[in-house]
């Protein structure tokens, strides 16, 4: 049994005029424990709606969403689901609750009723894991966007979450902040084997994942390794999505008749292939 199992999931937002637009349309997806999955798609493709199903903020209109064997519709497991799957949202300002970094990180475990010395230990560990120990006494508004997102990640780690769902965590950040957040997520995935679902607009970030899922109109339309997905430049273009710059350059060179491998995604791979 996979860690996250989504079967035939449909979701429609209630609308005023009675017509129901399907935000998720018969989505089936399974994610194994310890995987790093990037989810791509244009605005309105259902990425965020899917993310909100993973920790029971939204519940399926039909179909099933199971996390670690728990059905998200089962009220008895609601808090276990939310503890298992931690979420980081797009706007760093609107997810920090407390006026001091360490107090904010403690918010999750406090809600879970963890004893206070245990919370202290978890908060220190979580801040160390995202490299924010030095900022433990800071007020959030004095931090940069990338630092705020790292605090938000620490907040989920302190709940001892097994799966990190990040919903466009870098959309509002500058390039330095984007790199900070992605590096932190990659390190956590590598070092503590946490499952990562990373929703993004940036193809370079998706290329860092082990697996890429592409969504369009509430459906999963592609699912494969970054190399498979990004070698199909035409298909991605048609969906209104880009590919990483290196993949695009390689594709154009191939069209000009230069023989290059089809699976170039990163700058390094392109450089190596060109120098050969």
């Amino acid at each position, binding site marked *: 049994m996979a860690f996250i199992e989504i079967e035939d999931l449909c979701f429609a937002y209630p609308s005023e005029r009675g017509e129901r637009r399907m935000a998720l349309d018969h989505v089936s997806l399974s994610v194994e424990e310890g995987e790093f999955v990037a989810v791509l798609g244009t605005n309105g493709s259902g990425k965020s709606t899917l993310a909100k199903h993973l920790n029971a*903020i939204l519940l399926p209109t039909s179909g099933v969403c199971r996390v670690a064997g728990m059905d998200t519709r089962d009220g008895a497991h609601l808090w276990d689901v*939310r503890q298992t799957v931690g979420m980081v949202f797009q706007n760093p300002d609107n997810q920090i609750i407390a*006026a001091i970094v360490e107090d904010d990180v403690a918010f999750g475990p406090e809600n879970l009723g963890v004893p206070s010395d245990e919370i202290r230990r978890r908060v220190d560990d979580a801040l160390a894991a995202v490299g924010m120990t030095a900022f433990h006494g800071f007020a959030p508004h004095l931090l940069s966007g990338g630092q705020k997102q790292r605090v938000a990640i620490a907040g989920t780690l302190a709940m001892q979450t097994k799966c990190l769902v990040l919903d466009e965590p870098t959309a509002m950040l500058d390039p330095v902040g984007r790199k900070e957040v992605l590096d932190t997520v990659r390190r956590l995935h590598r070092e503590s084997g946490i499952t990562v679902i990373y929703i993004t607009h940036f193809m370079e970030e998706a290329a860092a994942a082990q697996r890429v899922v592409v969504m369009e109109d509430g459906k999963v339309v592609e699912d494969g390794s970054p190399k498979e997905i990004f070698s199909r430049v035409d298909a991605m273009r048609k969906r209104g999505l880009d590919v990483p710059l290196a993949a695009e350059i390689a594709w154009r060179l191939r069209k000009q008749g230069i023989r290059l491998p089809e699976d170039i995604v990163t700058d390094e791979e392109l450089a190596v292939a060109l120098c050969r």
Partner: protein
Amino acid sequence: MLTDITIGQFFPGTSALHRMDPRAKLLLLLVLMAAIFVFDTPGGYAALTCLAIALAVSSGVPLSMYLRSLRPLWWILAFTFLIHLCATPGEVFFHIWIFDMTKEGLARGFFLCLRLALLIVFSSLLTFTTSPLSLTDGMERLLRPLKVVGVPAHELAMMMTIALRFVPTLIEETDTIMKAQQSRGADFSTGNALKRVRHLIPILVPLFISSFRRADELATAMEARCYRGGEGRTRMKELHVGGVDYAAAGATALLLAAMGAMKAAGV
């Protein structure tokens, strides 16, 4: 103007005031505030002013911050002083047009302004040396007995925490909106009072809309982190009353007794 707002500003430190329990600080603040009104003799004011200055110095917070906290009240202070100066009957020492300035008025105006300033400085001592979270925590604990009569202690404390957390964020946002409007020709600084108030509308509307969006997102984020009200919640920083608090309470009691004696003696 926006940077003058010092409410909810906290200066981390290790002074005795910082180490005190927030509940003790809140209660002693109430006692001192009451004392300002009860011991209204020159001796009482002198004692309380000395206390305020001593505490401000010992807090390790830059003294300019205390002056800054008085700045928004500058007009009220000046106005109060002038009214009392001119409207108190007594021995006239200066006459201009229809105003008679009296010696009694001078004293009364001075003491009233001092009283207001002391209230502000004592409150600032609390907020400057207490982190917002432990402050609201302290309030929650103090209000907890009132839960039986329906006071939502936890909810009030959570609202205060969030409000304090968002003060700087919203100030920043107001500033951004004002600059955006100014860059398109909006004028906030000329015209009569009515006109200026009307000019605030294009600032307040976007600010309100974005606050609602923020509130919505924050609520989702809180739910995602397993927030389900005050039941069964634990705290990382447990409050405990220690030696500093007993010492402070003892010192305050002594001071009050001394001031009571001074008042009885008519100083």
